[in-house]
């Protein structure tokens, strides 16, 4: 690997991590769309900052752009509060308006400089290593790596300091407020850091893909864990993984790095969406299927419970009476035998003691809907897991 290659991957990784962290909270607060809005509406701030400083990496640029990000959030909330339109409509009204101001400003004034709409929308990671940070004549590395690194350090520090506050205000606004952790301060704090991250990341990956970097890792890890800390760690890992594999896919295909990273994020999400152990599509379908069989099982056991006479419990007769097709009847009987709920003697089925107990507990649960008695059944049967 050449030096620029390593630098590009480093920048990609730092950007991915810096985006993944606020992304987790945006997803949990159901504010994913807000990141999209911010990423677009920071443009006028960016352009104004650029006119003033003539430097794409100036801190003033970031401050002005982040400020426009906050204005976006405030405007969206303000329009929403009038009660005339819903939140998604408010977002849809605000960010194109601000973005278009930025586009017009660029078109009118910045035709001759290195700031065009393409770069704004898609970014270009490959060029990042060309812009070096010089400290007293010494080259210390790409400017964007330093800038994103600084943003990442700030993000991680704030996360470590205010993890508990962010958690409670995300989960329970009312209690957070009653305990004195102002939800407004935390909300705008999170919005500020998200805006700053978007501004920093946006030169590398552009306004559209930065949204993917924020939302996809969080959405993916949400499917895998029910622990907020693990969700943060997993999001970071998914971000890093996609950044590095995305870089090499781009290298191999000779395509846009940012595009490849986003594609990897999408692929990772798709795989997890399909195969996640409990929330994945396949697991859900399997569980539903299993529940169906278990309902049938219960029906079958109830029938046995209701009839002591042998002719009602003959295998062939059961099929006719319960009116199930052969395959279904077989899978139900197999399930019952496997769990020692029934015994079959000469084609006549009878409940075992365990089967009797199970039936009466299940009946009791269905009638009273009391959870305590069936706790021990939850491991064996999907039906009782709600």
């Amino acid at each position: 690997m050449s030096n620029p290659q390593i630098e590009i991957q480093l920048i990609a990784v730092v950007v991915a991590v810096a985006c993944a962290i606020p992304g987790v909270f945006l997803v949990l607060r159901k504010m994913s769309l807000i990141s999209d809005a911010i990423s677009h509406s920071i443009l006028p701030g960016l352009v104004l900052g650029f006119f003033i400083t003539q430097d794409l990496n100036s801190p003033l640029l970031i401050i002005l752009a982040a400020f426009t990000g906050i204005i976006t959030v405030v405007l969206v909330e303000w329009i929403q509060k009038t009660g005339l339109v819903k939140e998604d409509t408010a977002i849809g009204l605000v960010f194109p308006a601000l973005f278009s101001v930025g586009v017009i400003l660029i078109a009118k004034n910045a035709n001759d400089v290195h700031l065009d709409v393409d770069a704004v929308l898609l970014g270009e990671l490959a060029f990042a290593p060309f812009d070096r940070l010089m400290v007293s004549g010494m080259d210390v590395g790409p400017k964007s790596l330093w800038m994103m690194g600084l943003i990442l350090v700030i993000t991680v520090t704030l996360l470590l300091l205010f993890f508990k506050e962010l958690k409670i205000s995300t989960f329970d606004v009312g209690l957070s407020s009653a305990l004195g952790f102002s939800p407004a301060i935390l909300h705008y704090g999170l919005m500020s850091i998200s805006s700053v991250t978007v501004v920093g990341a946006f030169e590398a990956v552009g306004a559209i893909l930065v949204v993917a970097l924020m939302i996809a890792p969080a959405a993916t890890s949400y499917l895998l864990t029910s622990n907020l800390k693990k969700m943060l760690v997993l999001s970071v890992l998914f971000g890093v993984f996609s950044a590095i594999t995305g870089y090499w896919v781009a290298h191999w295909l000779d395509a846009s790095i940012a595009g490849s990273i986003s594609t990897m994020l999408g692929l990772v999400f798709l795989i997890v969406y399909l195969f996640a152990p409990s929330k994945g599509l396949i697991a859900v379908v399997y569980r539903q299927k299993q529940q169906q069989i278990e309902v049938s099982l219960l029906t079958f056991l109830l029938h046995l419970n209701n009839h002591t006479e042998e002719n009602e419990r003959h295998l062939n007769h059961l099929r006719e009476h319960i009116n199930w097709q052969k395959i279904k009847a077989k899978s139900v009987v197999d399930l019952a035998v496997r769990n020692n709920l029934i015994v079959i003697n000469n084609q006549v089925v009878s409940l075992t003691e365990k089967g009797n107990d199970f039936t009466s507990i299940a009946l009791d649960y269905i009638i009273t809907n009391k959870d305590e008695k069936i706790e021990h059944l939850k491991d064996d049967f999907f039906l009782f897991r709600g």
Partner: protein
Amino acid sequence: MSEKIAIQVDDLTVAYNYKPVLWDIDLVVPEAVLMAIVGPNGAGKSTLIKSILGIIDPIAGSVSIYGKPYKKQRQLVAYVPQKGSVDWDFPTTALDVVMMGTYGTLGWIKRPGKKEKKASLEALEKVGMLSFKNRQISQLSGGQQQRVFLARALVQNASIYFMDEPFQGVDATTEIAIINILKELRKAGKTVVVVHHDLQTVPEYFDWVTFLNVKKIATGPVKDIFNDDNLTKTYGINYKVAVNK
């Protein structure tokens, strides 16, 4: 019941979009009572609690908790919001939710440690949920979720408890478990304020009641004021509730 005043509300008016939801409420709650706030939908019951707790800003009036503004007395107050007000798919466990009750005493930045964990486990045990401590909260039944919320309030170790419809969507066993814990709290000298819907159970569960319908209709001991007259004034129709006292 002692002579001390736990909560005092003076001339409280709250409005959403210029429409008053609570109008000029005066309310005095003595220490160590178990009080129900009753009233029809939209009467402002939850709003009353929320504005006492500073979650909603009133347009007029003042609130004091043991003689001082709420902001100075946060440590004395525990709050159980409506179960439906939070996202139960949030990635966290029952124990972790209870631990949130300790955040108030910890203040900003400081993290909960062993002491907080121990207190939280004890609170879970008290509501009979210890064996569920590591369960993801979406995997709990409605009654279990409400018990976790109650445990979270207990761990705050407060003097005054506000609960917004703790019996909504819970099974009968949980309802009895919760009311027994609330009665214990009252015995220990705590003041408990509950937004309540089921008028039938008011005389059995509570010793104090406030009738609310945008304005305060009446407040006082259940045995004195829980009668057809006040019910009719509050609900606007002739309510026949058997009060056997």
